C-alpha cells in the first residue's frame, strides 16, 4: 500500500517538474496600456496579442479563440471589431460592454488586479444566441502569462 502511494507521489512530482512550470520564462515589460484585439467572426471571438514588438498586426502576433489571457495588475486596452455581424462583448466582472462592429474599432479598457478566471459573455445583436460567444478571461501572474504567450508561438 505505502509502496503504491510512494510511487504515486513520485510520479505526481515528476509530472509537475516535467511541465514547464519551472522552465525559464522570458518576462519582459509590456507597454501600458497593454493592447489586445478581440474580433467577432462567425459567432466566435478571435483574440490577437502583440508579440515582443508590442505591436498588433505584425509577424509575431499571437492568436487564440474564445479564451483571453491577461497578466495581473495591468491596464489593458481591448480593441473590439467584427468581420461580419454585430456582437456584444461583455466582461461582467469588470462591468464593461463593447460593441463589435465591422469596419469600425471600438475600445474598452480594464485594469486587471488579482489572478483568477472571469466570464466573457457574448451576444449577436438581434440574431441567434450563440454559446460559442461565451468564453473565459484568465488573469494570471506576469510569469505565467509570458510563459503562456511564449507557448503560443
Amino acid at each position: 500500500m505505502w509502496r503504491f502511494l510512494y510511487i504515486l507521489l513520485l510520479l505526481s512530482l515528476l509530472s509537475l517538474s516535467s511541465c514547464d512550470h519551472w522552465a525559464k520564462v522570458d518576462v519582459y515589460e509590456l507597454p501600458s496600456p497593454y493592447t489586445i484585439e478581440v474580433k467577432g467572426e462567425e459567432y466566435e471571438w478571435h483574440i490577437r496579442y502583440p508579440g515582443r514588438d508590442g505591436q498588433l498586426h505584425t509577424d509575431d502576433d499571437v492568436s487564440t479563440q474564445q479564451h483571453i489571457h491577461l497578466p495581473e495588475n495591468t491596464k489593458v486596452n481591448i480593441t473590439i471589431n467584427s468581420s461580419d455581424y454585430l456582437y456584444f462583448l461583455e466582461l461582467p466582472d469588470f462591468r464593461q460592454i463593447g460593441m463589435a462592429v465591422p469596419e469600425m474599432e471600438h475600445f474598452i479598457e480594464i485594469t486587471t488586479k488579482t489572478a483568477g478566471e472571469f466570464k466573457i459573455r457574448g451576444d449577436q445583436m438581434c440574431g441567434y444566441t450563440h454559446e460559442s460567444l461565451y468564453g473565459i478571461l484568465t488573469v494570471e501572474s506576469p510569469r505565467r502569462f509570458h510563459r503562456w504567450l511564449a507557448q503560443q508561438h
Partner: protein
Amino acid sequence: MPQSSSKPIIFLALLLVLAFGGYQLWQNFQWQVENNQSPQRYFTEEEIRPDWLEQRAQEQIEQAKSYQTFHDFSFSDQLPASGITFQHYCNPDGAKDHKPVHYDHGNGLCIADVDGDGRTDIYLVSQVGAGGLWRNLGDGKFADITPGSGLEITAERTSVSASFGDIDNDGDPDLYVSTIRDGNFLFENDGTGKFKDISVDAKVDYHGHSSGITFVDYNKDGLLDIFVTNVGIYTNGEKTSFDLNGQTYDYYVGFKDGFAGHMKPERSESSIFYENLGDNQFKEVSKQLGIDDIGWTGDANIIDANDDGYPDLYITNMQGHDQYYENDKGKGFIDKGRELFPKTSWGAMSVVAFDFDNNGFQDIYVTDMHSDMGANSALGINMEKAKVPTKAPENYLMTNGMSIFGNSFFRKDGTNQYTEVSDTINAENYWPWGLSSGDLNADGFTDVFIASSMNYPFRYAVNSVLLNENGQRFVDSEFVLGVEPRRGGEFAKPWFELDCSGADKEHRHCVGQEGKRTIYGALGSRSSALFDLDEDGDLDIVTNEFNGAPMVLISNLSDKVSSLSFLKVQLQGSQSNRDGLGAKVIVEAAGQTYTRIHDGKSGYLAQSSYPLYFGLNGAEKVDKVAVRWPSGQEQIIDSPTIINGLLLIEEPQS
C-alpha cells in the same frame, strides 16, 4: 522501501497534490457548468411552443375582473370565412439565409374604398410577390381583384408599405407603394379600382430603402404632398435570386451588420418630402423646407404640437433620436426635436396621436421595437412589461444618454408641452411594431392594438390589445378579448426546408443532421388597420403578418351591446384636400366631447383613410359635430340627425 516514520509525510504530500489537482478540476467543472447552459433555441415546433401562454391568459382574465372599462366582448379570426387567401412571403434574408437586417420589419397594409361602392377595401403588401387588393363584398366577405388592377407589377420589386391618398382630388384613392432600391410606385386610380403606374412621370420613383408613407398637405394648398421615409442603406447592392412557388424572384442582399447602419454615415439615406404641384406632378423639396432627416426612419405622422392648425411632423428613428419638425405656417419646417422631446424611444417604429383622456389634446404614442431587440430574445417572459435594461454602450446608442428603452407615451399638457408617462399608464409591451388606435369598446375612450412579435429564429410573443380605462391607464386585454391565443392555438409554422444530405449540408441547422429537415418559425404580426369591416357598427382588426396569412379579427361588440352607439364621420374637402387629411373633428354627445385628428395613419407601415369612428358610450344622440378643415375653415353641424351611422361632411366652398 519507505520507513514508517516517513509515512505521514508521504501521505500529507500526496494529499496536497491530490487536493491541488482536485481544485483545478473543480474550477474547470464550474466554468463548464456556467458556460455550457444551452441557450433557448426556437427552431422546432416544440421549442417554440409557448408553455407560458395559458398561465398568462388565466392571469389576465383574473385581473380583468377589476377592470373599470367594458370588456365583455371578443374578437375571432374570421380569415377563412372572409375569403381572403393572401399570403405574405419574406425573402431568404428572413428565413434560410437569415441576417439581422431590416427586411424582418416586414410590411404594411392600407385600406380605402378603391371602387366607390361605399365599402372599405384592403391592400396587403408582400415583401415577395405582388401585393393583394381585396374588394369588400359586404358581410365580411372579400374578393381578390388584384388581377387586372394594374398592381400586379409590384411583384417585380421588393415592397415595404403602401398608403392610399387622393393626390388629384378626383374622389378616388390613389396608391403609393414603397420598395427597396428598384423604385417606389405611385399608382393613379381611375375610380373603379384600376390603377396606372405614374411613378416616373410624377417624379416620385425614388430608388432606395423606403418605408412608411405619409400624405399631408403642409401648405394648405388643397393638394396632398407625400412624405416618404427612408430607413438607410441596409442592402449591399448585390442582387440574388430564389425560387418561390414555381416563380423566380430576386432581391438585394442585406448587410450582416444592418443594425450598425446608424454608426456609418455613408449608409444614411434622407427621407423625402415631395410637394404636390398639381396635375400629378411632384417636386422634392425636403432640403428647401428644412427637413434633413438622416435618421433610420421607418415611419412618421402628422402632429400639431403648437396647435396652429398646420401639420407638424413627428419622424421616428429606429436607431437613435426621433425627430420633430414644426411646420412654419406652410413656409417650411423647423427642427424642434430635442426642444419638445429631449428623450425619445431609442428604437421607435410607430407614432400615433390621439386624445387618450378626452381633454382635447392629442397625445403621442410611440412603439419601440429595437430596444427590445437589444436585449435579445433572452429577455424573460415576465420582463415584457418593463423597460429594457439595455446593455448597449453609448458609442452604439449615440443619443447622449437621452433615450427611453421601450415604448413612450407623451401626454400633451398644453401647447408644445408633453410629459412622458408610458409606465404610469401601462403603455409598455414587447416586440411592438405597428400601433393602431380606435375605440374598440365604443366607450368614448381610444384603445390600441399593437401588432407585435418576431419570427424565426426567435420565440413567440403576443399581439397586444390595450383597452383605455377611462383615460386613466391602459389595461392588458388581448387574452380577455380573444385576440390571443391565435386562431386554432397556432403559434408557429414551417419556415423553410433543408436538405441536410444535399444542397444544404453546410447550413448551420444541418450540423450533425442528415436528410430533409423542416425549420419552424414563430408567428408574428407587423401592421394593422382598425375599421368596421363588416359594417355592423364596431371596429374590427386586420393585420399583415410576416411570412404568413393575415388575421381578420371580427368584433362581436355590436351583438353584445344593445345600447351600442357610435358615429362614423366621412370628410370630403373642397378647398382642403378631398380626403380631409389633417382635419380636426370634435363630436359632442351626452355631455362628453371627443376629438380626433384625421391623419390617415394606422401605425407602422399602415395607413387608413377610413371614416373616423367615434364611440359614444351609449349616448342616444349627437349634440354637435365641429370640423376644423385643413384650409382653416370651421364648420359646425348642430344636432345632426344621424347616430349609429355614417355622417358625410362636405367642406363648404368658401
